């Protein structure tokens, strides 16, 4: 009923700068879609095109089946939460939330009911008469969300709404946004550059790079089967180890690497991807298809529940990160051997970075 569809959407700015280069995204009704990517990848532009704050150069944007390219933002039945909240500084919290409804000539008692209801859900009832400057960052964020909720729009748009909050509050608000969206069942598009936020919030995760969609799908699918080295290094923290390997009879070949028999490495070589958390310390013989890595430890970061171990692989200087459980007692300078099983290995094309095989 309120599906958001982007069909070959492009944005070309003056001076032929192509910010968005033909994007197809379908957000099913009621789903939470997160656009993630590095700065300048076009994710914000895309969101602003859905909002109607930027014109669409070509392609279609449809909300609930109707084409909205030419509609004003107010006519699209969307609500947006901005990074800096964009609350009206001279209006009380109540007026901030009521303003959009008043402009739509909603009856007074209905405005009152809706504002009070939103304030109750967001627990900001005690602050209704205050001005935004008298509120903390988290409270302002709630007001900004309240302003979106009272409108009962077809679509929520979030433009990095949590990046102005401190780390603790960010996690708390992230959980609340998710709960709220579930409860209201409103189709949402959320832009962030934080992969953790993206992973935890999304029903559909869209990774963007240079104005194009690199990969879209369920967050765990993207984690388990990244379509390219870009997605592989963007999703997951610390990022996936990407090791350039050459093809040999027995499988992949590079100094410091053993095993990997039967890996379909193309003749010209490839990039082998292994997530740090899939590496385990081992001294035993490798199982069939598994890959072992041996490198001298150069740095150890113990964070309590787990330990990050860094070291260069072979002579290539390629730094490997292994994420080991617990307190792995390793001294810098000692050699270490780690291994990953066959189903945790990813192969990517050497030049295009695209995934090879399933």
């Amino acid at each position, binding site marked *: 009923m309120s599906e958001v569809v982007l069909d070959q959407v492009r944005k070309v700015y003056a001076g032929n700068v192509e910010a968005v280069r033909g994007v197809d995204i379908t957000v099913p009704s009621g789903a939470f879609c997160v656009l993630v990517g590095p700065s300048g990848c076009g994710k914000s532009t895309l969101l602003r095109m859905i909002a109607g*704050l930027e014109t669409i150069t070509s392609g279609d944007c449809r909300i609930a089946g109707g084409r909205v390219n030419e509609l004003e*933002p107010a006519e699209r039945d969307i609500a947006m939460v901005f990074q*800096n909240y964009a609350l009206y500084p001279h209006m009380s919290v109540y007026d901030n939330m009521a303003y959009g409804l008043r402009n739509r000539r909603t009856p007074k008692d209905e405005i009152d009911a809706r504002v009070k209801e939103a304030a109750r859900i967001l627990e900001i009832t005690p602050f209704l008469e205050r001005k935004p400057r008298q509120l903390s960052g988290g409270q302002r964020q709630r007001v900004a969300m309240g302003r979106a909720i009272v409108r009962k729009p077809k679509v929520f748009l979030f433009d990095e709404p949590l990046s102005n909050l401190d780390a603790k509050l960010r996690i708390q608000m992230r959980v609340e946004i998710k709960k709220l969206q579930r409860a209201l069942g409103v189709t949402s598009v959320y832009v962030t550059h934080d992969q953790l936020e993206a992973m935890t919030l999304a029903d559909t995760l869209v990774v963007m790079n240079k104005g194009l969609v690199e990969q879209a799908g369920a967050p765990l699918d993207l984690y388990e089967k990244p379509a390219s080295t870009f997605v592989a290094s963007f999703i997951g923290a610390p990022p996936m180890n990407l090791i350039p390997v050459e093809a040999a009879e027995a499988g992949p070949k590079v100094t410091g690497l053993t095993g990997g028999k039967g890996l379909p490495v193309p003749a010209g070589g490839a990039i082998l991807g292994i997530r740090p958390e899939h590496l385990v310390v081992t001294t035993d013989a490798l199982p069939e298809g598994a890959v072992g890595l041996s490198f001298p430890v150069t740095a150890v970061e113990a964070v309590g529940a787990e330990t990050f171990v860094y070291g260069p692989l072979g002579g290539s200087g390629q730094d490997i990160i292994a994420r080991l459980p617990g307190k792995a007692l390793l001294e810098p300078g000692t050699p270490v051997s780690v291994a990953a099983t066959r189903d945790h290995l990813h192969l990517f094309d050497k030049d295009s970075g695209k995934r090879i095989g399933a």
Partner: protein
Amino acid sequence: MVERKTIFSYLPHLILLIGIAVVAFPVYVAFVASTWDPATISNGQMPLRPGPHFLENYYQTIFVGTSRTTREPVGGMMFNSLVMALTIAIGKIAISIISAFAIVYFRFPFRMTAFWVIFVTLMLPVEVRIYPTYKIVSDLGLLDSYAGLTIPLIASATATLLFRQFFMTVPDELVEASKIDGAGPMQFFRDTLLPLSITSIAALFVIQFIYGWNQYLWPLLITTRDSMQTIVIGIKKMIVTQDALTEWQIAMATAVLAMLPPVLVVILMQRLFVKGLVETEK
């Protein structure tokens, strides 16, 4: 830390006191002179304490005027000055806030040209364009009228620039939030921009009111009828007399009266913009 009080910690206060005395003493003398009879003032023996003729002198100044030079009661002059100062101040603010709004928030052809043309008029105060401006005003038949007195002084690059600078600091997201909330451009102006500009408006009002009140050259050219005289011109006319004694007590009372409205405006508006400075946050 215990602060040692030496003579030097009092020095700034001493300097300030001297400064205040230098500014305030002539004002005090003017007030004292406005309360004595002409004979006492002209014989050079005027005491430095207020005299007995306060009510009498001020009554004559406001409702009768000098007997020879200006022929008009100062009350009327004050009214003229007030109309002029208010029209100029309000007119300048109204015109410049709208032009700044246009320049900052709308993309129209020759937008920057328009901005630079406004900017260039900073170099063309009334004194520079006095002849052409006078010609236009007189051709339009606006001599000796409030319109002629005020309209040529209303266009203001300073105020436009000030509002432009202020509008540029208003976050773009506020405009966008307004758009999403269904407010049109003029509604955004009225509901958001105007309330946020109150501080700037108050500051400008003070500056422009005083600017308008103190105008001398332009009213001197434009007004010929006595009934259109402004108070600043009145003072000048009272002091320079060819063949009669200057009525100093009236001139001084007029000077004191001329000081009052600007002082009042500063005192009243100060509250508003101090309040604004404390409260405004974008």
